[in-house]
């Protein structure tokens, strides 16, 4: 089995510091990691591929992003490749990333399955996996919470809103975008870590991928200005002047808020349980 994993290097949220006056990010203090959903995808790929399978890792990013590909090599990826564009093309749109990834995948032996993180922890639009599937003309399932291989098909569970789940069966090859909490990446062995440190990470540029700068001309949202968030003006409660003094004081103290009313159930346990279930049913929780 041949599985490709798409990884993205993102700032570690714990190291993102915003200047309170200018809203600028302090890039000097930022450290970078592989996205948590992406590392979950990598771990799943290693498990699904098994000892005989092939796992390749792709990453669109600058030279510093070699670190995430080395990390992939250390835990057992058999092949890695970094994809990058000249500096004048600043990558903004998920479609650009997806197109580069699709080109990178088509350039090598086509895998049976592509695993991606469901969304990156920086931009987080969650579009790249779907767009990648579009460029490959493959099926895609996003927000995947479970994967089981069944021959040339894969059974997946997908997260829907309000805690609902959907089960799907997909024919391979396919793109699956998995959630961050699905798996925790293994700790690399020492020989793995040393091999990864010694490896050189191959890079593909536009011409290697058979692409032209014009191919990446997707409509993008551009940032015009960044303004720091201002605290929202808070409406100040004014008491009703027609009321007597002690009532106005009470109104000021409570700020006109009426407390949420709770309900204390009494009676035998079975009856109370029924009442709880009834309450939940009324509000559509069960």
């Amino acid at each position, binding site marked *: 089995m041949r599985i490709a994993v798409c990884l993205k290097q993102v700032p*570690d949220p*714990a*190291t993102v510091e915003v200047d309170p006056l200018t809203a600028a990010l302090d890039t*000097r*203090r930022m*450290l970078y990691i592989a996205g948590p959903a992406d590392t979950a995808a990598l771990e799943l790929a290693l498990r699904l591929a098994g000892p005989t399978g092939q796992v390749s890792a792709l990453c669109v990013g600058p030279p510093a992003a070699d670190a995430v590909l080395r990390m992939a090599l250390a835990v057992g990826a058999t092949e890695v490749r970094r994809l990058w564009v000249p500096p004048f093309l600043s990558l903004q749109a998920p479609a650009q990333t997806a197109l580069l990834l699709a080109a990178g995948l088509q350039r090598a032996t086509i895998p049976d399955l592509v695993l991606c993180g469901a969304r990156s922890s920086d931009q987080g639009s969650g579009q790249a996996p779907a767009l990648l599937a579009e460029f490959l003309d493959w099926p895609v399932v996003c927000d995947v919470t479970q994967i089981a291989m069944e021959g040339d098909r894969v059974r997946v569970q997908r997260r829907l809103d309000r805690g609902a789940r959907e089960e799907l069966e997909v024919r391979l090859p396919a793109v699956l975008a998995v959630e961050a909490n699905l798996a*925790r990446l293994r*700790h690399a062995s020492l020989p793995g*870590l040393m091999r990864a440190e010694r490896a050189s990470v191959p890079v593909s540029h536009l011409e290697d991928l058979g692409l032209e700068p014009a191919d990446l001309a997707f409509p993008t949202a551009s940032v015009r200005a960044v303004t720091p968030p201002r605290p929202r003006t808070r409406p100040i409660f004014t008491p009703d002047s027609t009321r007597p003094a002690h009532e106005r004081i009470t109104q000021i103290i409570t700020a006109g808020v009426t407390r949420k009313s709770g309900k204390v159930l009494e009676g035998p346990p079975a009856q109370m349980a029924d009442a709880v279930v009834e309450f939940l049913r009324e509000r559509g929780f069960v």
Partner: protein
Amino acid sequence: MVSIPLEERMRTVRFKVDDQPHIVVNAAVCAKCSVRACVYVCPANLFVPLDDGGILFNYEECFECGTCYIACNQEGAIQWSYPRGGYGVTFREA
């Protein structure tokens, strides 16, 4: 701000938390300890005394300095090692 509470100060430090704790505190030994040096000396305030005489300990925001096990006068109360490679505190100071 020059003066900030400890919690806010701890937020300036980056921790990559491992799922395996690198420090294990033996609650049975701590229950018999009256000195409780660890509570005072830890620069990250990770040892919190409990009403029942025990000690609540969190390893997640540890500086890995070693002060607690050096200060601890109870044999075997603190089992101390460094976190696994790549985990734990990362100073940046840039």
